[in-house]
């Protein structure tokens, strides 16, 4: 294993790690157009390792499209640089292998496989052909640790399809962890969760983000206030404002956009 533990000690902070040479994700002039409609318009983002960045904005602002573009799902122009490596223009699975992982709005786990199998598959994209052709005989340490972190030790052999909604989201986060991604892009991870599940997820995010580059799309402003170390606001495909939660909330441009639409604490998807 390259990482002895999935969760080193520490807390995320605005601006990221203060020591060593932190990893980063640098998005420059990212644009995505659908048939002439500019869904993402020259977006610039810079997220450092150790920062828990939230990406907020009204419906249709292009938040998910930004993540789609970074992960190679939709073609885009501009540049996305992951700690010195340009990732834009590569194929989805190559980008994933470069350490960029994501989750989806609707939890997408492999419903016909067990929780353990889901994690084992997520941990294994680097396995050689011989290892692939052999049976899974033991549980890898990283998988075991992830099971514990996401609180599904007891459900390891359960079919993922019968997990509760919140558990599926956690399983996806666990898959990201064992996938050994250092860039985590999470698309509304707490949508549809109960209050208890939300705070558990929030704590989990803080622990994870301390050592990683984390970008979370979220609508729930209470959640953002509680857990974000920094925030970027996206509206109509453009970055409107960036900074701490307080700074962003004080920004008249942001107030304008939000008051003009659905208010600050809507939870609708798009």
């Amino acid at each position, binding site marked *: 294993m390259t990482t002895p533990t999935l969760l080193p000690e520490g807390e995320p902070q605005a601006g990221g790690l203060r020591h060593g040479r932190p990893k980063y994700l640098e998005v420059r002039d990212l644009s995505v157009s*659908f*048939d002439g409609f500019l869904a993402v318009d020259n977006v610039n983002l810079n997220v450092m390792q150790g920062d828990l960045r939230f990406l907020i904005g009204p419906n249709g602002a292009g938040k998910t499209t930004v993540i789609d573009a970074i992960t190679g*799902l939709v073609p885009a122009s501009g540049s996305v640089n992951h700690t010195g490596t340009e990732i834009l223009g590569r194929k989805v699975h190559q980008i994933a292998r470069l350490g960029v992982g994501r989750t*989806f709005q609707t939890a*997408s786990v492999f419903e016909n496989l067990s929780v353990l199998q889901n994690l084992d598959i997520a941990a294994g994209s680097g396995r050689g052909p011989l290892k692939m052709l052999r049976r899974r005989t033991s549980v890898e340490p990283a998988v075991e640790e992830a099971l514990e972190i996401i609180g599904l030790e007891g459900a390891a052999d359960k079919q993922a399809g019968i997990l509760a909604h919140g558990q599926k989201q956690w399983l996806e986060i666990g898959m990201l962890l064992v996938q050994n991604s250092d860039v985590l892009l999470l698309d509304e991870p707490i949508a549809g969760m109960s209050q208890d599940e939300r705070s558990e997820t929030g704590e989990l995010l803080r622990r994870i983000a301390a050592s990683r580059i984390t970008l979370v799309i979220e609508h729930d402003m209470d959640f953002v206030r509680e857990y974000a170390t920094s925030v970027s606001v996206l509206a109509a495909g453009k970055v409107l404002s960036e900074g701490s939660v307080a700074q962003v909330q004080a920004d008249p441009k942001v107030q304008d956009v939000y008051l003009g639409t659905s208010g600050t604490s809507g939870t609708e998807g798009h």
Partner: protein
Amino acid sequence: MELLIGQMFAGLSLGSVLLLAALGLSLTFGQMGVINMAHGEFMMAGAYTAFVVQRAISDAGVSLLVSIPAGFLVGGVLGLVLEAVLLRRMYHRPLDTLLVTFGVALILQQAARDIFGAPSVDVRAPAWLQGNIELLGAPIPLTRLFILGLSLVCLAGLVLLLKATPLGRRIRAVVLNRDLAETSGVSTRRSDQLTFFIGSGLAGIAGVAVTLIGSTSPYLGTNYIVDAFLVVVAGGIGQIKGAVIAAFSLGVLQSVFEYSTTASIGKVLILIVIVVFLQLRPQGIFSLKTRSLA
């Protein structure tokens, strides 16, 4: 030169039969995700309808004119029954619909053998369709010209129906987004049934058309179904424009290949062309753009 024009025209008329067959397939595939292997047998049913009608009405001209709507009706009703009994429970399993309808195709073929016998039967073309006209020195059989015209008329009718009637708008809405259409109050049941009726009816007309250029046997459907599917694949699922381009291109290519090599090598070449084409456009000539992950 004359030979080339003749070949081109043979290709166009083959293309027009493929188009009639593929339009229905493409509609039902696009709207419901149903891959209907029995579509070829609906063609066969249309062809046998023409045969039966001609037995009742001996005048070949009148019987042809009666056969076209009759074939449409027979194909359409078969489609309606298939949709109501089997397919409506299977909209989320397109690959399984292929196998189920293959079973239906087997049954219909055997039924045709039991009713009409295994040897092929012939339908007489009316006197006014016998003979040729000259086009740039090449003789063009009137029957083939008639088929080309028939398919263009059907195409125009279909386009008009889809673009200009409320029914057509509903069908297009369901193709684009079934769930949204449903929540917006479109009765997907009704429009599914109508699409199936129209699509299968077009296969019936295609069946009537091919009686003019060949004899009718229980195997008629099998001869056309694979090519009709290739048209749908190359044209893009649910895309009428794509189907038109693909049908005529395939028809012409096939007759050119057959002319310059042999029929059997021509088939192989067509397939290679399509596989290579899909390397460039994996979704066919035209495709729907969606944001969904699927």
